[in-house]
């Protein structure tokens, strides 16, 4: 995995400040993400635990979570650390008291008791609490990932943890399915499935595991994307004779048609964080490229010019759009900032990365990565940590979407 260095400091100041600049689409510079973000050393040596399988699993998962969080380097006893975590794991290992402090300044970050139904969930909770308390950003360990698994030609929807663990098969249809997307409350998701013979949109309630039809118009029903307020769903429909973009009011089923392009297809809508715009794919220029349209309809702006195919956009919580761009023969994960026009290339190894999706922390990205005809879901870091593979089971795993919380 070759990932080249990028000087980020100045760029990130501009990006995060959201300063509008004169740089736009065509003139945008491409930068490549670097080889490892700065880390704070964190010691877990002060966490006492009984010698039970549960407690050992808790410590193992917690250590891995801390490393994968992207913010810390877990160090052993005797090494100077910027954060010292201490505490006691209660027998057998489903409850823990945790404190975290800065040994130099004495600053206390955290002092809490955690409880969970499994050692893995307990470790996820503790890791996310440490990340949030020390770095002030949401952790990712407790998120769930929805994705499609293709095993022996049989495709279904699955869920797993951010470290690939606790894999659960959600559907048992065996038919092509795609594009899971979460409701903002994280309690249900929508996706496309062909299990009744046509590509239709379904909703699964994760508490009851009940499935209902959301959209089954004649022709194509694809690429569902739930609005940030959970009231609307953008999708592609061909019921009027050509794949076009629509917004459906979920409560009433009322449809608003956004595009009218008899000679082009639209796909893959994704909402801006304020719910006012959609980014999507259209091939009206002759090849798939990215466009932005107001969610209530209106003037369209093309935003992608580099790469002969730009697909699968996902608008992140900090306003940046991640997408997959075909450059030098491979699909690369790239990030576009609509306000500054800055374009950042995240991957550049000889693999194809598709269906990139932001995590709620606006730092990490999930994407499927295909190399030698094997596809797996990876966690990518925009600050330069190496990609980490989530899926380890046989088969192909793709179209990931992280739960909002």
């Amino acid at each position: 995995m070759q990932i080249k260095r990028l000087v980020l400091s100045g760029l990130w100041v501009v990006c995060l400040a959201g300063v509008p600049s004169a740089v736009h689409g065509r003139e945008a510079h491409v930068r490549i993400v670097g080889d490892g973000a700065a880390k704070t050393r964190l010691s877990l040596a002060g966490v006492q635990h009984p010698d039970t399988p549960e407690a050992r699993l808790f410590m193992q998962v917690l250590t891995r979570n801390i490393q994968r969080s992207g913010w810390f380097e877990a160090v052993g006893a005797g090494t100077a650390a910027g954060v010292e975590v201490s505490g006691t794991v209660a027998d057998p290992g489903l409850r823990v008291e945790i404190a975290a402090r800065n040994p130099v300044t004495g600053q206390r970050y955290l002092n809490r008791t955690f409880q969970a139904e499994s050692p893995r969930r307990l470790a996820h909770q503790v890791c996310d609490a440490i990340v949030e308390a020390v770095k002030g950003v949401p952790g990712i360990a407790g998120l769930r990932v929805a994705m499609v698994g293709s095993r022996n030609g049989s495709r279904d929807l699955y869920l797993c943890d951010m470290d690939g663990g606790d894999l659960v098969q959600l559907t048992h249809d065996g038919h092509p399915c795609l594009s899971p997307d979460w409701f903002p409350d994280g309690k249900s998701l929508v996706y496309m499935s062909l299990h009744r013979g046509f590509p239709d949109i379904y909703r699964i309630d994760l508490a009851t595991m009940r499935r209902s039809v959301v959209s089954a118009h004649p022709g194509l029903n694809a690429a569902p994307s739930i609005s940030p307020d959970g009231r609307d769903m953008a999708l592609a429909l061909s019921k009027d004779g050509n794949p076009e973009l629509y917004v459906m009011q979920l409560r009433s089923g009322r449809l608003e048609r956004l595009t009218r392009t008899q000679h082009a297809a639209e796909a893959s809508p994704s909402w801006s964080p304020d719910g006012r715009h959609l980014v999507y794919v259209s091939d009206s220029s002759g090849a798939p490229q990215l466009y932005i349209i107001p969610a209530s309809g209106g003037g369209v702006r093309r935003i992608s010019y580099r790469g002969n195919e730009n697909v699968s956009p996902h608008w992140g919580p900090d306003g940046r759009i991640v997408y997959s761009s075909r450059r030098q023969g491979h699909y690369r994960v790239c990030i576009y900032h609509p306000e500054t026009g800055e374009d950042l290339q995240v991957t550049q190894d000889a693999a194809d990365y598709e269906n990139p999706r932001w995590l709620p922390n606006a730092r990490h990205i999930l994407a499927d990565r295909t190399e030698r005809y094997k596809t797996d879901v990876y966690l990518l870091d925009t600050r330069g940590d190496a990609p980490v593979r989530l899926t380890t089971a046989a088969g192909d795993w793709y179209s990931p979407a992280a739960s909002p919380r």
Partner: protein
Amino acid sequence: MKQVARVAGFSMCCVLLLSGGCRRFGTQKAGFDDGEMLGPHQFEDFDMPLGARTEFGQQVMGLDFAPVQFSYDRFQVADAERAKIEAAAAYLRVNPALTLVIEGHCDERGSREYNMALGERRALAVRAYLIGLGIPSERIQTVSYGIDKPADPGRNEQAWARNRRAEFVFYK
């Protein structure tokens, strides 16, 4: 001068109304108005809506209609492929009780979501040609499989070319 502007504005709005884009065009939000705007000429309105999905009977087996092949990332029916669609039209004419599902397929390269749309357009292009030949639109349904149902599992140019296709499936 004002008069001229008003007339110009009025005719502009007429164009937008005809193109079905006037109201939407007016709701352009600030902040995204500085890129390349696609003019109202991009918005066309020649819909051929799909009929409601009907209950399908049994699939007619043992038929051998050649699939319509397509170029990479294209959905236009090539001249050389038209005879295949005309053969399906002739079969529908002599069997007026049959309905047709056109399956659109793509090769495995490219985004899965985009290929769902591309497969649908291939099926719709064949459908449009059939309608042009006089087949009632309500007898035809389309379904896209994107890249998920290849005819040839190979991973080379020859297999990809075979997989870029629209297939005819008839139901009693």
